[in-house]
């Protein structure tokens, strides 16, 4: 096995580095690019309420005390962090509670600065690196102490990778980058209008209540550190494949301590793994292990109509649950999603559709054992005339909402699996976006967009902060703003 691996590596290496046509060597160039955008957003969202804090970081000197709501005493309260404050409708008493509406209006800015290095060797290999610096690492300002905080606009790295490419053998990308299925080679995902419609910047305005924020877009499959092979195009076909060991990115092992916890992305088993099917907000940490993607794409034109068709598959394993009794048990299904998409463009019109099916949760998370697979259909169209582009897109997804099984530990420390009655119905997530942009100058756009996204699951309360059962939640966002790409 190891011999095969070594052998093939040598062959591929030799093939890649073999001198092709003698070409002039080009000294590397360094380019700066990126974008800036500023939007006004008006949001109407179910459950968009300010309720009591559920564990806000506080410190002894009281630096953040003024950010939290003042505690008050009420009979029968069970807030674990602040026993005098109720957390859910069940302990609010008569259901009046501390609930206030959030503002519907907001501005949102974002920017990225991209550094591109490109060069060419004497034998015709092109090489380079891309480093994308983003400024949206944190969803809110993180205040640790009175004078110790990290800003919301803290710089971080979005993607960074190096590549080496030859016309004969294709391209290898190595680093934090999307995979062939997760953004590089998709067809039919029409987002070239407004901010991208249902896959656009609407998430910047939607709060996390009721989960009407997150869509399962190709890009959200993740830019975890991977190695990617992208073939040359021949007879209209090209294909790509990628592999990643886990879901994390960047330097270091991803294990900040010597414990085998969910915060260690190389751990194959840890206690509480059942909670990490979907990455925790912020860090790219989930149980996804050994992720592989493969995609084939055909592009061509028939009677003046440009066509593109892609089929692909993403799969991965999952970390296991480790009980206090040192027993490892698999609680997740392998990730495995098929994807097929097609688009056609002519006379300024582009129409496309994509279908995905397979074992995945709503945000590319591994399904728990016994859960049903995800189905997603996406369709979109756009029309460009002169400086104007208008378009719309639509998606519908059925996915396991509440998991059908609840995993836990009994008093003896053994893993238990109990049937979850709330998991009987499938969750439906559907949305649409319509938008337009006007190009003022190359790279400078005025954009306007309206989108609506609904999450529904029969019989399940998706907004526990409010009294009653809300089994259907919607977020509608109107965006008006400008974007400059440079």
């Amino acid at each position, binding site marked *: 096995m190891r011999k095969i691996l070594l052998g093939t590596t040598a062959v591929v290496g030799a093939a890649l580095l073999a001198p092709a046509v003698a070409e002039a060597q080009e000294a590397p160039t360094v380019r700066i690019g990126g974008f800036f955008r500023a939007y006004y957003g008006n949001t109407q969202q179910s459950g968009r309420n300010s309720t009591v804090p559920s564990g806000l970081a506080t410190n002894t000197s009281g630096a953040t005390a003024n950010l939290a709501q003042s505690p008050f005493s009420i009979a029968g309260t069970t807030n674990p962090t602040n026993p005098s404050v109720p957390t859910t409708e069940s302990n609010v008493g008569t259901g009046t509670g501390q609930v206030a509406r959030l503002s519907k209006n907001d501005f949102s800015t974002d920017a990225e600065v991209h550094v*591109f290095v490109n060069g060419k060797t004497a034998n015709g290999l092109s090489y380079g690196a891309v480093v994308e610096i983003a400024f949206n690492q944190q969803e809110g300002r993180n205040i640790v102490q009175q004078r110790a905080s990290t800003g919301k606009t803290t710089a971080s790295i979005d993607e960074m990778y190096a590549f080496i490419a030859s016309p004969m053998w294709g391209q290898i990308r190595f680093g934090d980058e999307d995979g062939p299925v997760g953004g590089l080679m998709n067809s039919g995902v029409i987002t070239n209008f407004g901010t*991208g419609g249902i896959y656009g910047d609407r998430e910047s305005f939607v709060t996390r209540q009721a989960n009407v924020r997150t869509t399962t877009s190709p890009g959200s499959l993740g830019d975890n550190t991977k190695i990617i092979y992208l073939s040359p195009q021949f007879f209209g076909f090209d294909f790509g494949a990628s592999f990643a060991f886990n879901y994390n990115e960047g330097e270091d092992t991803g294990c900040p301590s010597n414990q085998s916890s969910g915060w260690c992305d190389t751990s194959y088993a840890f206690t509480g793994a059942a909670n990490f099917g979907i990455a925790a907000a912020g860090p790219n940490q989930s149980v996804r292990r050994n992720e592989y993607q493969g995609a084939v794409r055909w592009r061509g034109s028939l009677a003046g109509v440009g066509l593109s068709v892609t089929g692909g598959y993403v799969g991965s394993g999952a970390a296991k649950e480790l009980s206090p009794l040192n027993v490892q048990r698999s609680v997740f299904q392998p990730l495995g999603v098929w994807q097929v998409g097609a688009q056609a463009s002519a006379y300024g019109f582009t129409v496309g559709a994509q279908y995905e099916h397979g074992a995945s949760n709503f945000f590319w998370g591994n399904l728990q054992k016994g859960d049903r697979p995800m189905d997603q259909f996406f369709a979109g169209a756009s029309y460009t005339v002169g400086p104007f582009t208008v378009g719309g897109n639509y998606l519908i997804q059925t996915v396991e909402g509440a998991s059908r099984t609840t995993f836990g530990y009994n008093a003896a420390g053994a893993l238990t699996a109990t049937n979850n009655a709330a998991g009987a119905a499938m969750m439906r997530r559907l949305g649409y976006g319509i938008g337009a942009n006007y190009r003022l100058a190359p790279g400078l756009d005025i954009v306007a967009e309206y989108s609506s996204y609904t999450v529904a699951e029969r019989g399940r309360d998706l907004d526990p902060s409010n009294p009653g059962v809300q089994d259907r939640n919607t977020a509608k966002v109107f965006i008006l703003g400008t974007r400059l790409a440079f």
Partner: protein
Amino acid sequence: MKPALLAFVAALPLLAACGGENQRLVGNDEYGDWRQGRARNRPQGASAGIVVFGVDKDREAREAAASGGGSGLSVNAYLWRATLDTLSFMPLASADPFGGTIITDWYSPPSANGERFRAQAYVLGRQLRSDGVRVQVFRQTLDHGQWVDSPVSVSTNSDLEDKVLARARELRSQSASR
């Protein structure tokens, strides 16, 4: 399963090389950019962004193409046209669009008898830049029926160069607005 998968992965580039003449490298800008689709509408891949270090080959190629790369000129077409225009008040002795040289014959302005001028202009490259043209003016005065070389005022050469550049700019803005 795993060895088969590995073998498949290893075979991918070998398979890719079977395309022969129908094969080409897929440009970096032909892959999706999934930063929520936001960084669209700009050149991607090797020509993304603004060069801060190194030679901008794309820009050179672009400017060469814009300035008539296909018209048989090996120098910047705007500068070439502008030089011809500017020196058109003098009779032309020779013009070599490949070398970028324009040499005029002797010319005596009607207002100034007993004085004649000749100019040599060099267009220096494909790029439209302020140091892309050199003009050298020669002056002779009639002294006892004999033409003798005499000095030219220092600003004459640079004044003419400025005129050429201004005209080139005019030409470029005209063609850009079309």
